[in-house]
């Protein structure tokens, strides 16, 4: 029922929405929960396990019951918490977990079977048959579990992230938070305040308190940045806090749904308050039962009354404020059921004075009303006498549990506080303090005082002097009676099965008792066995109650128990906002070379190599991949090809100890490398396995250019830096990544010399003036370039390093110059084929981190004159005899699949040798080796493959036949040859 006295809603803006297909109206500013209640809808949901009728239970993130599916098109949202989500025009809200309808739900009979569905029942059965488990029981359990349907359409909402640095972050804008800000705001510190609600302070009832709050906020003005509707959900090391901001539908041009705030604060003040907890009693889950404080919230914020005839069940004085507030607004208060016998606080007395009936020393022993609460049974603790009272709304308050989640997420200590019957932060974490009701202050005046003191303390930490001593004399300090620990009403076994501790998971007192009987006594075990506190509310109301019940069961005081671990996030956060804009093409940065447009113009097909996009091959019109590669390969071998090799890692090494570094990391000796000369080297990890390879050129004294493989560029740089920064700190060496300073174009093939000389006829490129493995600084077409005579194809090759911005210019010049030789751009695939014909391994393809240089056939690169990384490991006892070899299939047209395993002839029975499955019938087969690279070689007109074979060195060029596994279980016959298939003498590199 709405009694319109609120300014949080705009009653001029009527909003139509649908609930389970029926149309209703609400006002702008309403939440789903307030909209439903204002329309008199209390029965909104069914519970997950027993399908019992449930309704809205609270007003904020602690809500366990009313989760909905919203809409069904691309704006569909699952598991929408009614108390958090604003209503909007046309919103379609649907109940989950009920079929065929909310009112008549097929599975509601399950509540009758609760005796057989106690905690952990599924661990005790369903395992007789693997088949039935897999095909029947598990699918059925899965179907029954879970809340909403998963979305099946792509999310159209947008999300973003914002990084904020501030001096002080105040979490919570209630009275204590605002008071802390009041102490701080004149200091010029950058202060950020965050509050979960859209209207902080809305629950204040006393006019003078409300006035102070509004005036103080005004005074703070723009000196303090306030984010409302924003929830801090994670607290990480070094005051790094994560929050999610719900963006208002209004004025939202970017269609942003939520925004992630990543906050680094010098100091943090936690003023995030406490959460009201219920008391558990039989049938405490009926629609129309609410947390007491929610009545104030709905009334103050939305002008909505939760009923007409109220009963309050409490163990504390604070809830009396709610009931008095209701009375002031014209509601009928049937009675207050207070578990306490002696009430000496101010508020109960005031209530009595205002004619409210208080049943002292009474508890609720049962409730009635199938789909909405109608009446309750109360019982006197003193004499067990019971009688019934009717009502249409039952409020429950079991006291307040401080919201210690953020403090605890960081491992902060907590202790049990007897005054409030709850856990509070014990020792604050460095550079953080907690204030207000979070540390057990529950009255307005105490909270304000705590806030001001907290603010002053932080001010002092920043070195400011002059404390604020506000005048709080206008607020009268009232006496509050003692809260007594009261978690659940004692009842009989039957009703214990209806006394719900965790409303969301339908965990009852009976479940916790069964768990206890079965030895699950540690709260963490109880949680996992009974699911208590496992729901989307993360046990915000149920956690401490279950602790109270366990404490009683195991006969240990609650202060000896530890609440279950508090984990981030404090509230559920969408994957979408966590990802922000780092989705699709931005999920990982794309790196493109300077020549990317040239490749696109040539219709290149690209391959992902690490983050790079590299041309894989350049198909001509109507050309298939195999045809393109065939053409590209032969062009390089017979004339000239051109390759973009810019992605190769390039590291400038300078400083007087550069050579020392090179000798420490490379297996071979670089001491005798002359200026302008190039050397190939291997890098090993400490375990002696090949990590990367590349060439290093001595550019001048103490200046070297190291190249790495494309995929390992960053890893090698990190690796070298790690050694320099942690072990070899005395070395005078500087490393600079220059990978994208220099574009690299490789011109390769017998005609390459002709092509290059056209760009500068004045230089001599013949092998005597410019020998293999040497480097020249050369002016090409007017651009200063570095030219390296290295070859990865076996052909005469020039690797030209060009300043990145000039790359396209030189590329086009080379294409022009090469046109008479039909210069052919080739991609990575052709590069792979050509190097395989020459037996050059690719680190990361032919090696996998488990290959040492000897196995790779590069034993001669291991210097015995010096130490190098990995050397010691190579001296270990175990020596494998696997060896890098070539495979030549008996049938020249059969290409062995890459990754194929090799089986030895000896082990293959004479029959059945053509099919792997047949061979495996009688047991497993020992692998003798495997294929790492495999291609069809156009120049040899034969398939070729590289890989490793046990005792491979001895098998080369023998007649022994091995079998490689094929894609369809067929076995491919092959002989073992040298990995160098083409130009074994290496004559072609000089053209």
């Amino acid at each position, binding site marked *: 029922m709405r009694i319109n006295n609120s300014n949080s809603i705009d009653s001029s803006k009527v909003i139509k929405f649908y609930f389970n297909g029926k149309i209703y109206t609400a006002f702008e500013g309403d939440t789903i929960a307030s909209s439903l209640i204002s329309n008199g809808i209390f029965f909104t949901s069914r519970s997950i396990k027993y399908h019992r009728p449930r309704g809205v239970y609270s007003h904020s993130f602690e809500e366990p019951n009313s989760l909905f599916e919203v809409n069904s098109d691309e704006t569909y949202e699952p598991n929408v918490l009614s108390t958090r989500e604003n209503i909007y025009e046309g919103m379609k809200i649907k109940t989950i977990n009920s079929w065929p309808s909310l009112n008549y739900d097929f599975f509601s009979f399950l509540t009758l079977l609760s005796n057989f569905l106690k905690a952990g029942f599924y*661990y005790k059965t369903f395992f007789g048959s693997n088949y039935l488990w897999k095909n029947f029981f598990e699918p059925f359990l899965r179907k029954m579990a879970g809340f909403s349907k998963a979305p099946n359409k792509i999310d159209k909402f947008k999300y973003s992230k914002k990084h904020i640095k501030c001096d002080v972050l105040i979490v919570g804008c209630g009275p204590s938070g605002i008071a802390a800000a009041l102490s701080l705001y004149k200091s010029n510190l950058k202060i950020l305040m965050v509050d979960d609600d859209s209207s902080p302070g809305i629950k204040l009832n006393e006019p003078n308190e409300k006035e102070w709050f509004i005036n103080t906020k005004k005074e703070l003005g723009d000196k303090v940045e306030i984010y409302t509707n924003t929830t801090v959900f994670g607290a990480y090391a070094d005051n790094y806090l994560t929050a999610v901001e719900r963006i208002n539908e209004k004025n939202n041009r970017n269609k942003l749904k939520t925004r992630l705030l990543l906050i680094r604060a010098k100091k943090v003040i936690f003023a995030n308050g406490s959460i009201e907890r219920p008391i558990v009693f039989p049938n405490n889950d009926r629609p129309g039962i609410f947390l007491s404080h929610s009545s104030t919230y709905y009334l103050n914020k939305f002008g909505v009354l939760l009923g007409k005839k109220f009963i309050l069940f409490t163990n504390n004085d604070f809830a009396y404020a709610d009931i008095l507030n209701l009375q002031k607004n014209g509601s009928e208060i049937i009675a207050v059921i207070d578990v306490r016998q002696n009430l000496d606080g101010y508020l109960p007395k005031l209530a009595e004075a205002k004619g409210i009936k208080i049943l002292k020393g009474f508890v609720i022993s049962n409730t009635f009303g199938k789909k909405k609460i109608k009446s309750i049974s109360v019982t006197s603790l003193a004499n067990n006498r019971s009688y019934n009272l009717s009502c249409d709304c039952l409020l429950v308050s079991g006291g307040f549990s401080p919201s210690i989640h953020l403090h605890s997420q960081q491992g902060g200590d907590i202790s049990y506080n007897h005054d409030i019957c709850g856990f509070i932060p014990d020792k604050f974490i460095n550079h953080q303090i907690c204030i207000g009701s979070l540390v057990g202050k529950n009255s307005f005046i105490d909270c304000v005082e705590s806030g001001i003191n907290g603010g002053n303390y932080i001010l002092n930490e920043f070195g400011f002097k002059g404390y604020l001593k506000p005048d709080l004399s206008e607020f009268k300090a009232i006496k509050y009676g003692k809260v007594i620990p009261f978690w659940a009403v004692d009842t009989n076994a039957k009703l214990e099965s209806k006394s719900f501790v965790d409303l969301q998971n339908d965990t009852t007192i009976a479940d916790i008792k069964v768990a206890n009987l079965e030895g699950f006594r540690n709260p963490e075990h109880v949680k996992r*066995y009974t699911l208590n506190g496992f729901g989307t509310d993360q046990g915000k109301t149920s956690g401490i109650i279950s602790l109270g019940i366990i404490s009683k069961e195991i006969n240990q005081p609650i202060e000896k128990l530890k609440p279950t671990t508090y984990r981030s996030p404090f509230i559920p956060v969408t994957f*979408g906002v966590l990802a922000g804009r780092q989705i699709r093409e931005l999920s990982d940065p794309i790196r493109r070379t300077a020549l990317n447009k040239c490749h696109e113009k040539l219709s290149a097909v690209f391959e*992902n190599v690490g983050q790079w996009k590299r041309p894989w091959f350049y198909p001509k019109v109507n050309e298939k991949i195999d045809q393109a590669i065939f053409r590209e390969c032969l062009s390089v071998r017979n004339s000239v090809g051109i390759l973009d090799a810019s992605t190769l890692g390039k590291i400038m090494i300078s400083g007087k100890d550069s050579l020392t570094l090179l000798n420490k990391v490379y297996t071979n000796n670089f001491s005798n490398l002359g200026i302008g000369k190039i050397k190939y080297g291997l890098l090993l990890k400490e375990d002696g396995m090949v990590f990367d390879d590349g060439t290093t050129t001595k550019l001048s004294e103490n200046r070297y250019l190291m190249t790495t493989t494309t995929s390992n560029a960053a890893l090698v740089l990190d690796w070298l830096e790690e050694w320099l920064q942690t072990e070899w700190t005395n070395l005078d060496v500087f490393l600079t990544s220059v990978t994208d300073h220099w574009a690299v174009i490789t011109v390769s093939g017998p005609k390459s010399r002709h092509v290059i000389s056209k760009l500068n006829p004045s230089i001599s490129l013949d092998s005597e003036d410019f020998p293999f493995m040497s480097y020249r600084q050369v002016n090409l077409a007017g651009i200063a370039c570095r030219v390296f005579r290295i070859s990865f194809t076996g052909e005469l090759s020039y690797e030209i390093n060009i300043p990145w911005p000039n790359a396209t210019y030189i590329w086009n010049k080379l294409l022009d110059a090469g046109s008479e030789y039909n210069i052919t751009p080739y991609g990575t695939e052709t590069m792979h084929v050509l190097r395989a014909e020459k037996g050059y391994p690719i680190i990361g393809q032919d090696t*996998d981190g*488990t290959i040492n240089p000897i196995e790779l056939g590069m034993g001669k690169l291991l210097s015995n004159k010096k130490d190098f990384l990995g050397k010691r490991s190579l001296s270990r006892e175990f020596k494998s005899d696997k060896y890098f070899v070539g495979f030549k299939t008996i049938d020249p047209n059969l290409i062995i699949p890459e990754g194929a395993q090799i089986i030895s002839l000896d082990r293959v029975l004479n029959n059945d040798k053509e099919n792997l499955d047949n061979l495996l019938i009688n047991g497993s087969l020992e692998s003798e080796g495997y294929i790492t690279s495999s291609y069809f070689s156009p120049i040899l007109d034969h398939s070729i493959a590289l890989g490793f074979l046990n005792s491979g060195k001895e098998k080369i060029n023998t007649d022994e036949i091995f079998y490689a596994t094929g894609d369809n279980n067929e076995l491919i016959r092959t002989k073992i040859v040298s990995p160098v298939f083409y130009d074994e003498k290496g004559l072609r590199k000089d053209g």
Partner: protein
Amino acid sequence: MKKFSALSILTEGLSGNKGWKPHWQSVDPKSQYEVVIIGGGGHGLATAYYLAKNHNITNVAVLEKNWIGSGNTGRNTTIVRSNYLLNESSRLYEHSLKLWEGLSKELNYNVMFSQRGVLNLAHSLQEIRDSKRRVFANKLNKIDAEWLDSNSVKKYCKIINTSKDSRYPILGATLQRRAGTARHDAVAWGFARAASNLGVDICENCEVTGLQIEKNKIVSINTTKGNINTKKIGIVVAGHGSVLARMAGIKLPLETHTLQALVSEPIKPILDCVVMSNAVHVYVSQSDKGELVIGAGIDSTNSYQQRGNFSIISGQMGSLLELFPIFSKLKMLRTWGGIVDVSPDASPIIGETPVKGVFFNGGWGTGGFKATPGSGWVFAHTIANNFPHKLADPFSLNRFYKGKLIDEHGAAAVAH
């Protein structure tokens, strides 16, 4: 031990559920045991169970500093598979997988082993090579393995995004149909119950504070609940393996890192298999409760804290949404971290140590859960016979001295 069955639920239900007994007896340790297992996680409890069951050694205590299953057993993403590349690994994990297949019956406890199939995605040509190599190797070891092209991947897992336009398109995947998930807590509880039933003492809240070694032999253990004399101990702790070994004067080649994981809010069934991608760091399945269980990447710094950094979690969400764009509106419900001991070759260390009577089983890195029964089986055998089980032999500590590493790193076999 009260036998669990549909009938026991029925009879107990009819008589008010009063007759249930503790699944295991949590007791204080006695002053002497034949074997003491340090670590009450899945591996430790399985070791104790198989010591009692297979080797008839029942004078055994399991010491757990918190509550059983409180370490990585209760923190992992519960993936069980055996499709490892190398013979040594695949045979050990396959032995384990075979035990998983009968584990619920063996323990009379539903560990909810769910053979829903595991996809290991390939996003690059190199990953295709690595995947196929693994499939062929698995076949030779008679481990079920299939290579699926991207169309078949889409057929097997309908909601996955195989679009060619995605940042790292799915080019294919390996599939092990017998692989799947299990209910991790139930594994610890089930082993504890079965071991307890055979006479093993399970001592919770009992932290080991020192190991007494004399003449290079273990003689006793100091704990927060008194000293225990014993001639054999098995150290089976994750996250603090090197710390415990150090108490015996043994230095192990282990590095410890935080590994995080998270779950979403529960939703109705949407993902019926396990999907793992090494390249984009996503490991996801849906629990029977309906939560998506997602493994995050490892925090690179060394740490003993069971808390990680937020950037790891948020950083991988883009990749997850790239694979499953429809998950965008699901909400992250809980995140947590476990601490993992990683050895130089990313394979576990199982077996004897330089100190007589001290046996070690650890260094499982990010993927120990799947090995739980197999690990317990071979470790119990090793302890009972003072000699490595043949499947455990290659994993002995001396492989680092000898140089015979079992390195799965480069084989694209995701370690989870």
